[in-house]
Structure formats: C-alpha cells, structure tokens
C-alpha cells in the first residue's frame, strides 16, 4: 500500500520543486537587495573596520 498517494506522481514532486525554487529565488533576490545590508550588515562591518 502506498502510504503517500501523491508520491507516485512524478508531477507532484516536480511542482513542489519548482514552487520551492521559485520562492527561494525570490526570497533571496529580495534579501540581497534589502535593508539587511544597508541597516545591519554594512554598518556592523564598518564598525569592525572591515568595510
């Protein structure tokens, strides 16, 4: 018996992978253009004398 009925479909796995890749890509696109660098990382590096 297949415990996961959806496992048998390669399509489900493919969609889940595409979805994951799309969201991760968009997240990191937003992340690396964000205020994380402006407000946190760069000032910190500056204070440590690394910038």
């Amino acid at each position, binding site marked *: 018996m297949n415990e996961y009925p959806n496992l048998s479909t390669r399509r489900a796995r493919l969609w*889940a992978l595409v*979805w*994951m890749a799309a969201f*991760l890509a968009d*997240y990191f696109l937003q*992340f690396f253009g964000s205020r*994380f660098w402006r407000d*946190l990382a760069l000032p910190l590096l500056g204070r440590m004398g690394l910038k």
Partner: protein
Amino acid sequence: MIRTLPVDLFWTVWMILASAGIGRKALGAARSSADEEGPDAHGLLMSLGSGLAILSLLVLGLGMAGMVSRRGYLILLAAASVLCSREILLVLREAVRLAGLSIRGLSGRFEVFLAAVLLSAAAANLIFNYSPPTQAREMLYDLTLPKIYLQLGRIRDVPDQKEFYYPMAVQMLYLMGMGLRSALVAKLLHFFLGLACAAAVAAVTRRFFRGSAALPAAVIFYLMPLVTSLSGTANIDLGTLFFGLIAFSSLALWLEGGGTKALALAGFFSGAALGSKVTGISVVTAGAALAFFLRSPEEPPGISRAVRRTAVFLFAAGLSVGPWLVRNAVFTGNPLAPFAVPALGWKAHEGALIELRGLEKAAGNVPASEILRGTRNLLVGDIIFGGGPLVLAFLLAGIYGADGKRNLRILLAFALANFAVLLLALPYPHRFYENRYYALTTGLLAVPAGLGLDWFGRVFKSKGWVRGLAGACLLFPCLALSLLFGARRIPLFLGFQSQESYLAEKLPFYSHAVYANKNLPRGSKVLMLGSSDAHAFYWDASLVPPSLELLAGRDPEDVAKLLWGQGITHVLYFEGFYRREDGALKHTENSGLDLHWDMPKMRASHLAGLFRSAGVILYRVDYSDLSDRVHNPGGIRFGGNFG
C-alpha cells in the same frame, strides 16, 4: 545583566508555572494523563493558555478594584501556587518528562542538527531579549502603561494615548511581572511566549499530522525572522500568536469530535487573542466562520445547529474579550474606544482620528506598482519581520505530503481566513508592511512547511540535498539574524557595557529623557509634536500626543491658550519631520500630523528652548503673558481627548 538573570528567570518561570496550574485546574484536568498514555504536550499548552488568560483577567479585575502593588501580586501568586499546587506539580512533571522524551526521541543527524539550531536560536534570542526595552511600541505603551498603573497604584483612565484603550491581556501579565520584579521579567515573559508558540506548532503537527514533521515545523517556525525580531522585545505579538495557535488547535480538536468543550475553548482562546491585540479580531472572525460552516463528525447538519455552534464560540470569546469592553465603557462610555461608532454616539479618541486621517490620505493615491511591491513584501516577506525563506518554499510539498488531508484543509482554511480578514480590514500601508499582524497565518503555514520538508526527505532517494538546502537556509539568514541580534548585546549581557551607555547608543532621544528627568518639575506634561517615538518608558513626565485642535491652531496666543487648557508644560518638537509648505508645517510621513503653528512667533512668545539634540527640541511653554488673563479651570489635568 547576567547576574540578575537567575532572579528574573525565577519570577518569570514561577508566573508561567502558576498560570499553567491555574489553567489545568480550570480545565478540570487534575489527573495526569502521563500515567496512561505519556505526557500530553497539547494538554499542557491548553492549560498554559487558559491559565495565562485567567491570570491576566484577575490582574485586570484587581487593578480596577484599586489593587496594583508588589505586595498584592505576591499574595496573588502565592495563593494561586498554593491552591493549584497539585496541578503545578503535575504540569512540571509532565513538562520534564516531555523534554526527556523529546531529547531521547532525536534520531539521525538531521534531527540533532535541527535541535541544535533551535537551541542556539533560543539562547541567542534570550540574550537579545534580556536587555533594557528599546523597541518603539514597548516604550510607547506595552510597558509604559503598566509603569503608569504601578505609579498610580490602580488601573484607571489614562487618556494620554489612544493605544491605552486597546485590549491589554498580555500587558496585564507584564504589569504583574513589573510589579513583582522589573520590566525585564515582562520581556522574559514575551520570550517564553515565543517558545510556547514553537511548542504549539510542534504539538499541532504531531497531534493532527505526523510526529516526524513536528521538529522541522517548530524549527522553521521559531527561526522565522519575524519570531526572532519579536522575541527580543516586550511587544505582545507572540502572546496574540500563542492564543491564535491554541485557538486553532482547539478548533481542530472539536472537529475531530472533541465536543462542545473544545469548541468553547477555541472561542475562549480566540477572544484572548483579540483581548491581547485588536488585530486578533481576525482570529475570532476566522474561528466563527469555521464554527458556522464546519461540524464535527457526530453532529447532524442544519442551519440551527450552525447558529448554535457559532453562538457557543462567540459567547466563549466574549468571556475573555468582554472585560476589556467593560473597562472602556466604564472609562469613556464607549466600549470600542479608541474607535468611534457614530450610530450609537460612541466617540473616537482624537489620536485615532489623527491616525485615520493620515492613513486615509496615504491610501489616496497608491500606484499599481506599489500594490505589487507591497503584496510581494507580504508574501515573500520583509527581511526583519517576515516569515523567512522556508515557510512558503515548502508549502506545496507540505500540501502534497500531508497525511491528514481534512486537517490540512481546516488548517489552510483557518490560516487563509485570518489572512483575508486582515487584508480587507487593515488600512494601507499597514496592509502590506505590517507583516507581524499576519503572524498567525505565517505561523500556521510553518506546519505544512515542516510536513513538506519531512515529505521531501521521504520521496527522494537522495534526501541529503534537500535537507542540506533547508539547513543552509536555517543557518543563513535565519540563525545568522538571531545570532547577530544576540551577539550585539553580549557586552551588555556580560556586564562589559552599562545599561546607560547601551540606551544612549540605541535610543536617539535618550538624552532628552535624561535631561528631562533631571530638570523638569514633578507632574510635567510634555506634548510630542511630529512623532510619538520619544521613548516614553524612560520619561518621568507624561508624554502626550497633540489634539486635532492643537494641530490646527495658528495664532500663537490661541495655541498658548489651548496648551494651557490641556495642562501642557513642555513641548518636544521633532523638527526633522516637518517641512514648511503652503504656509503650514507639513509632516513628512503622516499628513494627519500636519501642523499650522507659526513656529518663529511661537518661539518668540511662548516657547523657551531647553535642550536640543538629534533634531529634536525640548521647549518649556512660557505662559507668563497669559496666566493673569486666562482662567485654567483644572491646572495640569487629563482631558479633552475624546472629541
């Protein structure tokens, strides 16, 4: 700080244990389920949630009756501990057994890695949390109003801020913690609420879906930047989130056949979510909708049954949120203060009117590109206050892989209903840029995300890559953010930096508070012009926002009369927020705060500069030419805020 941590932890843990004991007694679950089927995490969290809500209402009731004091809270805590001693011991025993089982149950390197990440984040968040309050909201009212109540020795109407009329279930626990010990206990309570939320996510995953996904779901949840950012503060959002999570859990239990008691508990916890934050209205709405449209397996269909279910749910919600409406009715005559209900003649607080005016103008011309940008911010996530990279990335995999499809549909329906209510109800720009309001939806989606990670690990022969990818995302940016926030406070935590220098470094207007506390007479009332982010928690004087009438005043003498009438002794002017345009001082961010004063003339006649720093000037109001001509009926007093 590290020296005082054990004592503050002692008070915090005692309050939490007493709450869990009270909740357990109230739920009538005095017998340990551990003896029969092992420790019940779900039951422990229900006990904790019930107890926290009840304790909060007790503090409110006693405060309204005039009892706000350290001695009173000691008696309350001691009495609760004695009356619920058996339940507290059971809770403690079950919690210890549960922790032991969880540690022994770790199997495989990936689970050990996840547990290590979770513990590291908790340790870093604890250091982040254990620092003097510096977040805008906690300084404006979350900790400031309890401070005022402690000074007054009772809970009474303080009309300075519109926020003082919001429901304050979590702040009542802060009031007790501050009364017993300090504001740091209040902050620690919020930190522990974050851990309780993670436990609730794990318990929901284990109870309604799959045990092996509980740890991944809890780690994905707790490592969300949103949770990290909130864990370091005494904002109350993690309390609202905790009540929202256990409200869902109770609903799911009811739909499995848990009976009317589970439905009533779901209503009670939804009401507690609303009782701790106005945005909790989405939890009550979503829960009531589910109670109406869904039914447990043994219940026959029918509209009258649906109405009855919804009535039970809403009645139970009213038990936990109702006291806050009563408080407002007693103080102002308007149960829904600070908001207006014109049809019933219930007036708004002027602060709410000013904010709504600013929001209406901001919402006037929003281009489509801005809506797209805002939607993306909401979905993909703000970097500091968002859900992080994993929640949505593993969502579809979780939907494919979830075992209990009915439970998954219930979870998604509840999460999406909560999301939709907020999206429709919140004004722009809060709708797109206050991600923390949507924390319940994001938190619930961590459950399918955990299921998705678990599913990926099962369906691919080579599962190392997907676990490696998820692990990398957990380390960066999630854990990195947590470590960064913690590491920045290590000198303070270890005592190498003083609290004074920490506050001076973190707070741009802290020097104003220090100056004012040294030099302003007792009972001074300071008008904030341009911003309410003046770190009110650290001021001895009371800080008040402007009334509509004051903002609109033009002639210096008229303005001075208004200031006199409202008992204002000083003005804190945020110069940088204003630019002169069309004969008025336009606020750069909130048009509701546009000012019509003639500042040069005001400075020449009625404002004497006392202290200036970082573009913010503290003036003393000079009434010397006015005091002999204008009668001040009440001297320095509260008033005029409800218009």
